[in-house]
Every structure is written in C-alpha cells, then in structure tokens.
C-alpha cells in the first residue's frame, strides 16, 4: 500500500522527485521542468496548530481505549497534546491538571466519516447549498473543502457530542462527487485552520438512485444503474490513460536528463534538445489517478448489496481500494465480502425506507457488518443531528446485536466510532485510540456513552480542552449566532 503510494507519487510529482540540480546550458530548460509538477504537494495546506495543552491527568475512570480494551478505575495522562500513558494509578506530573473522573467513562474522541457540516450548514438557506456540484455526473475536480463554511453552528454542537474529527464529503448527486476533507473539530475562521494535518483526502462516489434520478431527470446520462456503472468505468478508463501520459512524460524526462548528462560528459557544445512537454493538467483525472494511486481514499455512497459487489469488482478492474461503503443499508447481506476485501461499512443504526434502495434496512446491520473476521463496522451520521449523538447510535446498534446473541461488549462497540473510522480515513496512526503517542483526542462522559442520558462532559482535542459542559459560558460559538436573540444551542 505504502509502496504503491510512493511509486505513483513519483509518477505524478516528477518535478519534485527529479534528479540532480541542472547545470550549464541545460540549466534554464531543466529549471522549467522542475517548475511544472502536475500537482503541488499541498496547494491548500493545513494551518491547524494544536494549542499549548496543559498536562492533564484524568483519574479513576472506566476507560474504553478504542483498541478493544476496557480498563476499570484507570487513569489517562495527557502531555504535550499526546496520550502519555493509560493505566492504573498513574502519578500526576508537577503542575498537571488533575480531573477526578470517578464514575465517568473515558473514550477516544469520536470520529464521523460522513458529514456535510459546512457544505450544507445551518441555516439551510439557498446561499449555503454548497455540497453538490450537480452540473455533471463526474465532478472529481471539486473539493468539498472549498465549499465549507466554518461558521456552521453544527460544528460546535457536534463537539458537544464528543466529535473531535470528521470527514466532510460532497453530496451524492453525482457518480463521482469530488474530494472530501478530514477536519479537526475546532472553532476557526478558515477551514485550513481545521484541516487535519497529513490526513489523506477522500473521494466521494455514489451508487444507485441519486445520480440516476438527478441526471435521468434532465434526460442525460446516467438514467439507469447501467449508466451509473458505465459512467464510473469511463471516468477511470480516462484516468488510466491520463496516468499513462504522465508516466510517459516521466520516462521522456528521464531520457532527456540522461542525454543532457551524456552531452555534459562529452563536453559537447551542440544545441540542447527541446525538453519534453508535460501533458495538460486535468483536475478531474488527477483526482481519479490519485485514487488509483492510493493517495486519495475512496468512499462510496452505496445501499444495496448487489451494487456494493459491483463496486468491489469496479475497484479491482481499475486497481483502486475502497475504503468504506457509506450508508450500506444491506451490508449485512454481504458482510463476508466486505471483510474479505478490507472494506468498512459506515452505517446508521436504524434509518431506512425513504428510498427503494433503503427498503431492506435492519437494526442489526452494524453489528452484523462487524461480525466476520476482519469486519469493520462504522457508525456514521450524514446528519447534523445524528453527529451530535453517534454514541447513542452505537448504543442502539450494540443492543440490537446483543439481542440476537452477538455479545458485543462496549469496548468493541466503541471502535465503531473511533478506531474504525480512523482506519477508513487513514488517520489511525494519529488518532482513534488511547495509546501512547496518539493525539490526545479524548472525551469524558458522565457515564456509559451508550446511553440516551450520556453527555460528554469534557472534550479534548490534541490535549486542549475544547468543550467543558460545566463551564459553557466561554465556549466558542459560531459568529452567526452572535446577536441573534435567544440563539445558541444550549449544551
């Protein structure tokens, strides 16, 4: 995986990877070559900076680590914004803030892999409708991050529900809707200041009814599921071709540089050859090539088991990996297939039926997705309400699983909204579990988080206390809510 990524990164970033500094009369032309990377590494870089976090010792809690362990009466030590230690009877470093968490439960910060906060914010006025570039079935060139309104009050209410990281996706009107971004859930005036450092981008794709309804209604393709699949295939075939053009260019450059070096050795004074001309950048195909490279994680809105199986074949045809099926109402019918292919199912606990492709929803879906060896279930929201209580959604899913004898313990269920979404987003090396060295994204709950009465009391992001229920007055609120009489979701 990592190898593939590196390899193809070089193919695309020929300039950045290119050989020794050019010299002599080659210099100008070589410099031009260096100056045309097809995609700068990070044109919209994260400016997120973790605050200077107080060293904090959380004492005497029931700790669900997200690794599958439950520690009773355990402590969590946070230092320099990272998890320093988890275990019994940790001693408080000098000057540490000590929080008595007896009777409380502590979990990793929750992660939602499916949110449209900021691109479909509150209030939901026309001017804020920035989540679907529904003008073409393939808009792999658009990035959700360029539509995010950081003042969406929903970010704060999600934080109050324990959400510390979230992926903002384009909507599902299109076959290929564009790139998704992962954010840290901190208040900011720009999205760059929320952008999760070093998190890979996502690619949003959509199966089924939505694209064919949107475009079929305009007498355009796709109007059928056949058209949907043809649309993905043509797009990826174009991207393969595009990738080949860049690979050829890479070879030409190498050849050109080799020739240049030979001429230099021979002290040849004849005129240099014209350098190879790079292919024209195509932002759509660049994104799809990135998905095939593994640089961009593929997230597919897909409900029916038969369609998910088609998408797995599609991914093999074009050599990309599907990170997760989102919504995946029928994942329980093909849980083994998903597990065998390392694909997560990101699902609701109980929503169903508003479309034909949602007609077979069952409340045991999440538990059954998680059941096979290697199964990866995720509780997701796709909702500014649901994201505020992913813990309750998990409680519903866990209890329904247990009601049919699956014996799911809280320490397993917590993975559905911490470690598993971190894995799907490719941020599991940074967050999602309470392990030494991970970001100190931590929630202290007033009791078991899998309860309708559960409330996040304190939420830490990189060790920084971002929400404190006992002291709500200084909590950041969206600019939008200022001066609005009576406004402001009360924690």
């Amino acid at each position, binding site marked *: 995986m990592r190898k593939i990524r590196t390899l193809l990164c070089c193919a695309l970033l020929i300039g950045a990877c290119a050989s020794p500094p050019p010299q002599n009369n080659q210099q100008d032309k070589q410099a031009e070559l260096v100056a045309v990377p097809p995609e700068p590494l990070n044109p919209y870089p994260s400016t997120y900076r973790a605050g200077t976090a107080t060293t904090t010792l959380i004492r005497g809690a029931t700790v669900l680590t997200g690794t599958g362990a439950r520690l009773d009466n355990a402590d969590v030590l946070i230092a320099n914004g990272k998890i320093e230690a988890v275990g019994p009877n940790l001693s408080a470093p000098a000057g540490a803030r000590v929080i008595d968490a007896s009777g409380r439960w502590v979990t990793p910060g929750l992660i939602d892999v499916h949110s449209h906060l900021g691109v479909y914010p509150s209030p939901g006025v026309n001017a804020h409708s920035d989540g679907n570039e529904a003008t073409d079935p393939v808009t792999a060139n658009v990035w959700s991050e360029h539509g995010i309104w950081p003042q969406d009050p929903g970010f704060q209410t999600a934080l109050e529900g324990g959400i510390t990281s979230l992926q903002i996706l384009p909507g599902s009107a299109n076959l290929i809707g564009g790139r998704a971004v992962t954010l840290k859930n901190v208040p900011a005036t720009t999205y760059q200041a929320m952008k999760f450092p070093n998190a890979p981008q996502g690619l949003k794709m959509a199966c089924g009814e939505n694209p064919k309804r949107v475009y079929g209604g305009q007498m355009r393709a796709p109007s059928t599921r056949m058209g949907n699949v043809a649309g993905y295939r043509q797009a990826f075939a174009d991207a393969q071709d595009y990738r080949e053009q860049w690979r050829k260019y890479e070879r030409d450059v190498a050849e050109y540089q080799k020739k240049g070096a030979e001429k230099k050795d021979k002290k040849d004074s004849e005129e240099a050859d014209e350098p190879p001309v790079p292919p024209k950048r195509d932002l759509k195909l660049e994104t799809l090539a990135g998905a095939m490279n593994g640089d961009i994680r593929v997230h597919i809105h897909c409900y029916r088991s038969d369609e998910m199986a088609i998408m797995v074949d599609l991914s093999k045809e074009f050599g990309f990996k599907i990170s997760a099926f989102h919504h995946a109402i029928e994942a329980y019918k*093909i849980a083994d297939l998903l597990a065998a292919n390392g694909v997560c199912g990101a699902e609701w606990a109980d929503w169903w039926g508003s479309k*034909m492709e949602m007609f077979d929803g069952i409340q045991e879906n999440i538990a059954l997705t998680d059941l096979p060896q290697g199964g990866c279930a995720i509780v997701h929201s796709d909702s500014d309400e649901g994201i505020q209580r992913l813990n309750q959604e998990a409680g519903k899913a866990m209890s329904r699983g247990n009601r049919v004898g699956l014996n799911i313990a809280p320490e397993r269920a917590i993975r559905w909204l911490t470690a598993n979404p971190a894995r799907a987003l490719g941020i599991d090396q940074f967050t999602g579990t309470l392990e030494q060295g991970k970001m100190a994204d931590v929630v202290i709950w007033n009791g078991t988080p899998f309860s309708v009465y559960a409330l996040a009391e304190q939420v830490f992001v990189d060790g920084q206390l971002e929400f404190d229920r006992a002291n709500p007055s200084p909590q950041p609120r969206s600019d939008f809510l200022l001066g609005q009489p009576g406004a402001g979701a009360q924690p």
Partner: protein
Amino acid sequence: MRKLIAIALLGCATLANAQTVLIRGATVHTVGEQGVLTNADVLIRDGKIAAVGSGLSAPADATTVDAKGRALTPGLFGGLSAIGVEEVSLEPTTADAGIILNAPPFEMQWRPEFDVTAAYNPRSVLVPVARVEGLTWTVLAPASAEGGTFVAGQGAAVTLDGRYDAVLTGSRSLFINLGGNANGMSAGSRAGQWMLLDQAIRETRSPNAQDEHLLLHPAGREALAKYLAGGRVVFGVARAAEIRRVIAFAKRYGMKPVIAGGAEAWVVADELAREKVPVLLDALENLPYSFDGIGARLDNAALLQRAGVRIAFTQFNESHNARKVRQLAGNAVAHGLPKDAALAALTVQPAEIFGLAGERGRIARGQVADLVLWNGDPLEVTSAADQVWIAGRPVEMRSRQTELRERYLNGCSRL
C-alpha cells in the same frame, strides 16, 4: 356520534377476541395518579384494562404473563407520521401524504376537505416495524409539499394493530403549515398566509359566496366550518412571533390550536401555558435550521414543561423510523425534563391533545389495553419492547425487518 362509537366498538370486538391476560409483577408506569407501581399486576379483559393493583387473582380463563419486574407502560404515541400512508417516500405511487394541485398563486385552490386517513393501509410493512417497538398509535398528518397548499388538509389518530377501520374517534384535526417554508405556497410572503386564511374564513362564513377566485369548494367550506366551531387545528410553526399570532388567530376564530414544531416555543412558554396551547415538538432540534427557528435549543421541552405547557414528542417527516421518538424523550430527560413528564409526553399528553385521554395514554381501569412490556428503561436507547399488546391482544413481535434479520443471521447470503 353515538352511532360512530358503536361501529368502532364492533370493529374492536371482532379483533379483540375477548382475551383475558394477567400481567404479573411488573413495574407499572401508570402515567396517572398512581404514578409508578412496583411489583404490580394488570388485568386485561375484553380489550380493556380491568384492574391494576398488587396480588390480583387470575381469572380461570386468563393467560398469565410473568413480568419479572420489567417496566410496563402504556402504548407509545408514534408522533405525527405517514405510517401506512407512504411505503417508500420517494416513490410517488406509494406516497399519499399530500395533494399537489399545482395551482398558480392567482388561482390558488385549497382543499381542506382532503383527509389523509382515507389513504391508510393497515397492511403496510411500516405498521409492524413501528408496532414491535412499542408504538401503538400515531396521528396521520397530511403533508404540504411544493405545489401543494399550506393548509394541508385533515388527519387523525389511528391504532396500529392492523385493523382496517383504524381511525380513533374524536381525533380528527386540520393541519396548517406556516412560516418561511410555506412562503412558496402563499405567493412569497408569510403575511400572505394570514391574508389567505382570513379569506378562507370569510368564504366559510358566507357559504353562498360567488366569485371565480374562491379558495374553497363547497366541501372545503363545510370542512373548515367544523374547525371554526371549536375544532382542533395543528399549526406547523417555529418562530415565536408566529406562535403568538397563531394563538390570537385561533382564539379569534374559535379553533383549538396545537403547535407543531415550536422550535422557539420556549420563548413564549408563559403565553402557551396561559392559553392552554399544547406543543408537539422534536426534542432533538437544537440548530437554527432556518431563520424561523433561530432559537432552537435542547431544553425546549424542559422549559415548556416547567412553564406548565402540555407537550408531546414527535418527529417530522419521519414515518419509517418513527420508533426513534423514544430517543427524543430520553434526550429531553438528559436536558432537564423529568422522566415521568417525558413518558407522559409519549403517552397521556398526546392522548389529551388529540382528545383520546378518556380511552388511551394511561394504565388505569377502563382504558384501552394498549401496553408495552420493556426489557429495560423504556426511554433508553439500549432497551427494546419484549411484548406489545394493542386493545388487549398480544402483538406478534415480527416485522419485515425481523424476517430479513433472521434470514441473514442464519447465513443465507449465498455468496
């Protein structure tokens, strides 16, 4: 009226099959004067609750159920919904909640005589899905959709036991949706909504009116006239200023108003309490989804209850997952509503609002035996209904979803 009741009872009798059930040793949430009774018994006979107490003796013909201390509550209210009225929301041939006349604004037509209960299908798969989760009744609410009218028509409560004649007598109501979301149905202004309502009332009061631009047909005038004589009108409205206007309007024209939505109801809680206007609300609504609901907050329910306003829980535009209404109640408790008030807002309070409290909403002698036995705290998301009774009959605890579950739980995926 009397005749209607008789017919309804006849319908009951054939279904109820005169079963006698003694539920023993339950934690009985009466939602009435008796509060919560521990280790109590409930006797069901002829579809009604015949006795509530401890140490009741089982009649010879009784089936006994040992509750083992589990919670027993009245059957829950499924909220305003389209259960049995829409099967798949996005499939027009299965979705019957509203009518769309597509009349241009200058020749607007209203059809308040539209009664959505005529579309009710008791054999809908949504009915068992709701029922096995403890929802025993719902109020079918007509919808205002784009191209339709903000006076959506009439709806009524139905029992979810699967009978054809499911409408509960006395619950019929008119539904009117106001505010910014309805601007497209009132020529672009919410003020136009009041203008048009005034016009409709004038037409109703002068039944011989002749004008090519009448809003109402004779049948519509007749329907509206009933509500002007003390009928129940459910106003979908969020903004505090408009809630006050509804109160004044209803008072002026003799309607019995109910607020549905009421994101900013807490702002005018004292007026609602004084005028005895109840509120149907979604306790999870805490974001300013529109400029009508800027003041939305999670303790809306608690604030209203504290002020003495009658509240009941509902979701909006959610029929398939109507069962989530329990979660609303639990969250309201987490944000300050007393637990007993939350359960009441799922049982006796909606029954009161829809004129059914004489028969439903409590566990008391003489009430219809709509009951739910829970495996835990009835408001908790991790709890489920172990057994449901409607009109004294045990509900088969199966639905299309349990059938799907069982098929695939047993490894039938045939990959």
